[in-house]
């Protein structure tokens, strides 16, 4: 399904679209204040970008170094080529220990791998512990944002959901009350979980450890209580040295939500006493993107969500319209790079305003990449007829100045007297949300010539 088609449902409710836009703009505004409060913000961005680019140029070495150090500290390291292998590893680990219920802390990677349905089909109870993720999980939906998973849902809807599933009072919509109910529910799940799964924000080659950042402390509870900790990480999450965290932790939360740092930034370097700790290094297409010189900088992404919050299209079309685990500008790059046929419409769901590149803490040239991707998709013949036909027509006209002039003359005459139904119909998607401008008396060429003539007098 194309982005435009998928967005239609969301924008049908104009009140909600406006609310969504304003709520997310509020987060973008907080990001601006946070960035402005750091005098060396631009230096931080360029440093972070350079560290990531350096890491990608030696990723194999850093991966081996990371593995070696992790193993030395008693962590078990696994490698997964794709989503299926990742899921198999997780299930095998759980089965070995007879685990039937697990708690998860924010990991877009497990979402990407489709881990939840896979484990549930094998009879394992999976509970997402991040409040936003738990809400979408209870609604049998997917996150619509990588940092604010339930940003598209209203508090009244959460109230109704919790009333049905957690037994809260009917009609209650106070966020304090609802969060308290979720706290009790989640603490119960955390205390009784057989294993804790987390994602990884940063992995450090020099020390073989991982860092996970949350505001709720769910990754900490989810790993400090159960006897097994499994961490799933994309191979691009590596940074060379511990001290580099001093750059990335300054950028991450400020870019994401405008906080100076997340409430909890946990550094895991060994299993707890009596605990098992596993790290699964997942490729799932990343090594392929690495080879693509034009687009491999998208692997710099630290998943802060700043490009989503600033994007005028994302804010007004909602995350689900992207039909991908990662939506927004960064999602419109990484998804079509991996699978252009499936995601051909995403690079076109962009106004090329450049705001995403402006806020990206690791300086991914997002709008340049989105523009370049359009060319890639056209070259591969993946454009739908609705785009191909007008482009073919435009090429034909622009190649022949006489035809262009004649066409203009005709349009100025005909558009004035054509009945609306002939102009605003299915063949003119532009007319769907807009009125065409009033047809001018004369052509631009004529007006320009007149002006020049007047001047030379």
């Amino acid at each position, binding site marked *: 399904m194309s982005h435009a088609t998928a967005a239609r449902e969301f924008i049908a409710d104009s009140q909600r679209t406006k609310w969504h836009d304003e709520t997310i703009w509020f987060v973008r505004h907080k990001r601006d204040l946070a960035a402005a409060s750091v005098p*060396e913000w631009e230096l931080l961005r360029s*440093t972070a970008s*350079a*560290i990531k*680019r*350096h890491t990608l*140029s030696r*990723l*194999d070495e850093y*991966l081996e170094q990371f593995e070696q150090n992790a193993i*030395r*500290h008693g962590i078990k390291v696994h*490698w*997964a080529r794709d989503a299926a292998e990742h899921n198999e590893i997780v299930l095998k680990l759980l089965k070995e220990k007879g685990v039937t219920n697990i708690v998860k802390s924010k990991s877009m990677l497990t979402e990407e791998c489709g881990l939840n349905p896979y484990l549930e089909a094998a009879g394992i109870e999976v509970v997402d*512990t991040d*409040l936003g993720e738990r*809400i979408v999980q209870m609604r049998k939906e997917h996150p619509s944002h990588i940092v604010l*998973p*339930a940003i598209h849902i*209203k*508090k009244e809807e*959460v109230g109704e959901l919790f009333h049905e599933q957690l037994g809260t009072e009917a009609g209650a919509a106070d*966020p*304090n009350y609802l*969060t*308290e109910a979720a*706290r009790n529910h989640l603490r119960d799940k955390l205390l009784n979980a057989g294993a804790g799964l987390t994602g990884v924000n940063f992995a450090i080659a020099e*020390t*073989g*450890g991982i860092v996970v950042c949350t*505001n*709720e*402390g*769910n990754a*900490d*509870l989810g790993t*400090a*209580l159960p006897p097994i900790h499994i961490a799933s990480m994309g191979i691009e999450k590596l940074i060379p040295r*511990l*001290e*580099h*965290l*001093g*750059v990335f*932790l300054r950028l991450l939360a400020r870019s994401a939500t405008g906080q*100076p*740092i*997340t*409430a*909890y*930034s946990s550094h895991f*370097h*060994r299993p*707890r006493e009596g605990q098992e700790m596993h790290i699964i*290094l997942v*490729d799932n297409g990343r*090594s*392929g993107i*690495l080879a693509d*010189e034009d687009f491999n900088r998208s692997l710099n992404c630290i998943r802060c969500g700043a490009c989503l919050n600033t994007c005028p299209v994302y804010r007004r079309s909602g995350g689900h319209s992207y039909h991908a685990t990662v939506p927004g500008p960064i999602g419109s790059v990484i998804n079509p790079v991996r699978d252009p046929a499936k995601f051909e419409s995403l690079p076109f769901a962009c106004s090329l305003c450049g705001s995403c590149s402006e806020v990206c803490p690791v300086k991914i040239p997002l709008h340049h990449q989105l523009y370049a991707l359009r060319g890639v998709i056209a070259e591969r013949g993946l454009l739908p007829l609705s785009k191909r036909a007008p482009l073919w027509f435009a090429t034909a006209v622009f190649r022949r100045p006489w035809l262009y002039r004649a066409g203009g003359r005709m349009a100025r005459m005909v558009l004035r007297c054509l009945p609306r139904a002939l102009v605003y119909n299915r063949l003119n998607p532009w007319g769907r949300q807009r009125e065409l401008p009033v047809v001018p008396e004369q052509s631009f060429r004529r007006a320009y010539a007149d002006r020049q003539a007047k001047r030379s007098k």
Partner: protein
Amino acid sequence: MSSSRKHILQQVKANRAAEFELPSLDQDWQTFGDPLERFCEVLTSTGGNSLRVNDLASANEWFEQRISGNADSQTISLVEGVGRSTLELDQLETPQELSGLDWAILPAEFGVAENGALWVTDINAKHRAVYYLCEHLVLVLPASQVVHNMPQAYERLAGFATDDTPPFGCFIAGPSKTADIEQSLVIGAQGPRSLDVLLIV
């Protein structure tokens, strides 16, 4: 080792991005005229609370007042002289036994003025869950142990995780919180509902 490992490493090596130099971290990072003041300010903005006290005895006095009227609350203290322990952390078999703990009084190693974060480890805490499962967290920190910024913080952490049993470590900045319901900030999501930082001046 597994064939997937070999395959991924081969792929990554063959597809390496263009050579790019590692930048220097030796820069003029942000510092503050009065880092302690700044630390307290940012901590407040994260929902935390700070208090300067002269010594552990006055810290203890503050705590007694804080829990007055709740004499039967469950407490664990790893800071000698402040509060008392109704449970012995070392004696607990499993971290789950911490459920129902009202107060934890624990040491912090240092604070960061730039973002109001405090560094804690599990070096002396058998169950690190104590930091996250308690209802209310009190961290005790010598006021002299506040660095300006994160680069300085990691300078202090140099050597962390180099031995064979590296500790668990965490920057804690404020109480547990969430804004997942319509961006309304709620304190006390899953972890502690409050964070008090006692700065021993």
